[in-house]
């Protein structure tokens, strides 16, 4: 039974979908553009920007203070942000930053830029199917096991997104992972149906 499957610790990590979301969506995003986006609402200091970033993207790796201040200095250097002044609000004195007109234009350019679809996806499953054929193994059995592993993960993600109180960020990030796993499954189904031809091609080459 699949329910007794004992995969590695990462497999059943409850925040799988969230970490996937971070890796696939948030990581490629530019910290400078995120900070510019946070500054779009008005001047802010580094500590507040870090807090708001971590609140807005709860599944992302929290920004390090050093990264925030380094990025702010680069934004100032490039004319996309400038120092508004200093303020303490009862605490330690902090430097306030605000976006410049050039920063606003850069943000508009970035948000309007269409992310190019990946032209090619590295497919480890396909490689293993081919190598299994080369080694005179059982590619159909391999695909069945892979399918079972994908389904186990999809059940886990579905449980995460349908749990009572799941917020929309959690639902959408789980949906992102589910949709990609589903695409893998469709590919596996098609490949399983074409194994005879594939085996002939691979072994003849």
């Amino acid at each position, binding site marked *: 039974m699949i329910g*007794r499957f004992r995969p590695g610790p990462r497999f059943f990590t409850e925040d799988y979908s969230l970490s996937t979301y971070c890796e696939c969506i948030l990581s490629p995003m530019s910290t400078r553009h995120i900070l510019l986006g946070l500054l779009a609402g008005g001047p802010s200091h580094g500590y507040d920007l870090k807090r708001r970033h971590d609140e807005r993207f709860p599944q992302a790796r929290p920004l390090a203070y050093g990264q925030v201040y380094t990025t702010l200095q680069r934004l100032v250097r490039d004319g996309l942000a400038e120092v508004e002044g200093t303020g303490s609000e009862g605490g330690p004195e902090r430097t306030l930053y605000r976006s410049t007109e050039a920063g606003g234009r850069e943000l508009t350019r970035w948000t309007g830029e269409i992310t190019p679809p990946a032209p090619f996806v590295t497919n480890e499953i396909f490689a293993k199917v081919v190598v299994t054929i080369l080694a005179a193994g059982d590619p159909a*059995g391999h695909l069945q*096991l892979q399918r079972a592993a*994908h*389904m186990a993960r*999809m059940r886990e993600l579905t449980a995460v997104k*349908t749990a009572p109180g799941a917020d929309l960020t959690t639902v959408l990030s789980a949906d992102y992972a589910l949709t990609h796993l589903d695409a893998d499954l469709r590919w596996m189904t098609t490949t399983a149906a074409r194994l005879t031809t594939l085996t002939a091609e691979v072994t003849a080459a």
Partner: protein
Amino acid sequence: MSTDDNGTPLLAARGLVKAHGKTQALRGAALELRAGEILAVTGASGSGKSTLLHCLAGIVRPDQGSVVYGQERLDQLPERRLSELRRTEFGVVFQFGQLIPELTALDNVALPLMLSGAGRREAQGKAGEWLERFGVRGQKDLRPGEMSGGQAQRVSLARALVTGPKVVFADEPTGALDSLAGEQVMTALVHTAREAGTAVLLITHDAQVAAYADREVWLRDGAVVSEHAQQEMAR
């Protein structure tokens, strides 16, 4: 995984063979459904999924093999007893709902209770409660043609569950819905079935729908082919 009190599966099929004319729909299919379990049966079009459901629900008789529900062989029961089981212990949901178009949502859900002897007022009261559970009480006076696909399907779920069945058979319950409506229907079905302890046999070609289930069996050419993979995964 829960089972009946005596530890046996609630529903068990062995060696099912069924042909429609010259087309062999089932070729030795076998599976077990445990009490309260949600089991997805997946496979490509023409793999025999719907025929399997019809055999398991006692809607058609297999040419060979057995279907055991509790202590009874469904494949050998007289039609009268099968009809009684379908009315009292089984609920069925189809892809297009198959609600009675002339009746309101409330009367569609009340009908199975009235066929089992309940008075109209009592039946409508209970039907209203089930429409509430599926979030469509506001549509109680609408006829199927006046509802969205998702609303109609939730009415179908209420109709399937209103009699307190032990098993709900759902044949592509989201097949005619967009993804968001399908998600709402599946969430409602799974949550309600778990609350009520009802087993669900879910037929689907959609892996994202199958992921709502506790377990999956995969049909190909009329036989279950995923047993091996599941056993391997259990090691």
